[in-house]
């Protein structure tokens, strides 16, 4: 699996790869593309639940519909941040933020999203290196975390992250490209952490269909 160089990225951007729009040529680095912050922030609400529990995602059929939706919608607080408006990310906070760019990967490329080092030195980091699957289409969710000791002011449009591209040795077939739970999304959403692992979650066992 080899990483694409600037030249390779530029060639792919002409036809099979989409990162739209690139607002300035300085977004294209030697082997990555900078990604900008979008205009929505989802913050985990501290008071909404006592702890993260995979078993909460199990047995959806048994869960009262009202409670299911209530838990889902109250877990994160959503903020709309127009351009030139600030958002303050406090220390220890995790925020889900969409990229301004729309990304579309061909079947033979995988993307890896990391923080830009200039922001990392200020304490802002991407909590985990995000993998963007081959064939993905949509905004990318950045999981921003402030590891510093003071709040960081963020503005939509700032280049916070970067995506590098790796060629897949055997491109995925159309049948293999399972739409992930995050495909085609326009804004961040929390995932299903128990998906497919129900047998390992005690007490509430789900029959895997």
């Amino acid at each position, binding site marked *: 699996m080899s990483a694409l160089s600037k*030249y390779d990225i*530029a*060639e792919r*951007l*002409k036809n099979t790869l*989409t990162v*739209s*729009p*690139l*607002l*300035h*040529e300085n977004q*294209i680095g030697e082997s990555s593309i900078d990604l*900008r912050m979008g*205009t929505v922030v989802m913050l985990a609400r501290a008071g909404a639940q006592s702890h993260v529990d995979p078993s909460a995602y199990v047995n959806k059929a048994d869960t009262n519909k009202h409670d299911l939706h209530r838990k889902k919608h109250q877990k994160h607080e*959503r*903020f*709309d941040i*127009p*351009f030139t*408006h600030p958002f303050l990310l406090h220390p220890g906070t995790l925020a889900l933020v969409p990229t*301004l760019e*729309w990304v*579309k990967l061909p079947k033979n490329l995988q993307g890896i999203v990391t923080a830009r080092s200039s922001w990392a030195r200020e304490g802002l980091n991407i909590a985990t290196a995000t993998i963007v699957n081959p064939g993905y*289409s949509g*905004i990318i969710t950045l999981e921003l975390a402030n590891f510093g000791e003071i709040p960081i002011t963020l503005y939509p*449009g700032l280049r916070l992250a970067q995506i590098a591209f790796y060629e897949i040795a055997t491109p995925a077939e159309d049948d293999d490209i399972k739409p992930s739970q995050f495909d*085609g999304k*326009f804004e961040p959403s929390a995932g299903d952490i128990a998906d497919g692992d129900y047998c390992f979650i005690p007490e509430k066992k789900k029959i895997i269909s």
Partner: protein
Amino acid sequence: MKAKDFLLNECENLQTVLEETLRYEYGIEGSRVFYEECEHRLSEITKLISVTQETAAPALSEHFYKLEELSALISRIERSSLKEYSWPFLEEFKEISLSACTDPNTTQLDKDGNPYPPQVHVLSEGGLSSYQIYVDGRRVPSRRKILTIFFPRTLKHYVLLHPILGHEMGHAIYSIAAHEKALDQVIKENLIQPSKYFASAQNFTEWMYRNPPQSVKVFLSVIEAELQVNEQNILDAYVDFAAWEEEFLCDFIGLLMFGPSFIAAISDLLYSVDSSGSEIGNFHPPTACRVNTLIEAANILGYETLKFDPDYQPVVDAFWRSIHEKKQGNEWFDVFTSDQIRETLHKLTAFLGPHENALYPTPTKERVQPLIKKLLVNIPPVGYEFSTHQVEGKSKPHLSFDENVDFRDILFAGWIATCNDVKSLKFEHANKLCEYGILQQRAIKMMQAQI
């Protein structure tokens, strides 16, 4: 408690509520101007009540309604927050419309001697028919105008339907006294007086009753049975024809402001309310009359003659077919001639022309086709292309931007893309792509301004 004391007490309550609204930031501009304007209005109403005698019942009643209007305004603003609406659409909409609905004659001038534009607040409201722009009445004691824009709660991100606000903006523009006079003149001289159906009350009743379509006959018989409305009294008891004139006017303004996406939006929405197109409204002409007129107007403006490359022409043709399918065939609904419509469009274009960006620029293939292309491959439509060029023998990235892409081009492209027979774009998804495209196009403009 006596009436005057009750009203003065209510003034104090309203002051408390106004201060509580400062807990929130409203819209993009924040709350300062709104707070100061409402505080001034409340202060004035309080003074009015204070100098009114307890025995002056009509005067106190008058003040009651003034207080009620202000109370309603403040409570509406309390519900106005960024989450309630599509702010990317709204910011673009304000840029094309605020100039036209700014009263040119006012004592409220900024330091450069220009009139202040209205303050705009936005919220979503229940009900599909909630699209409205609420404007301060002329008799509301105020310094600066406040516009409140309502979106239906369920449709708040359906940007492809929001062009209907062009019609509502027509009402806001008409609410300015100077504009009312000028626009009345345009409509009466070019549309109504030359019309064989609307030039006089007699012409109107002949049109309405002599040979209407069956669907209209049924409606007329219902209003006769339920309301005792007939040929002799329809213009006194049922139809407010001045309101009908204003509706036709606002349809034209919406079309000139938004272009083809306006016809698509208003015809979808109106026919969802009245699928027969035949309902005779107190204040609204029959839907079919309005839509037929708009289709003819679009033809006169040349929208359909715009040609695209062979890969895209079929989907554009499908869009126009879908528009023409909404034209009612019965000639009864064709209430104006092409010449009348043409003259009216010409005069209204001259009226809106001085207001920057108010008129939708004539669409071009160069602006619209790339947007359609992106939508058909599930990419938000923006005026941006990536290519490479050779610099000293090396291949270098080249980004090209079309800053002329207007958000109304994005909406036009969005409607076209939903007509793709090969792989149809779901309406909800098309709306989301277009909303995101409007947001991204704004970012392009900001970056280009920086460079």
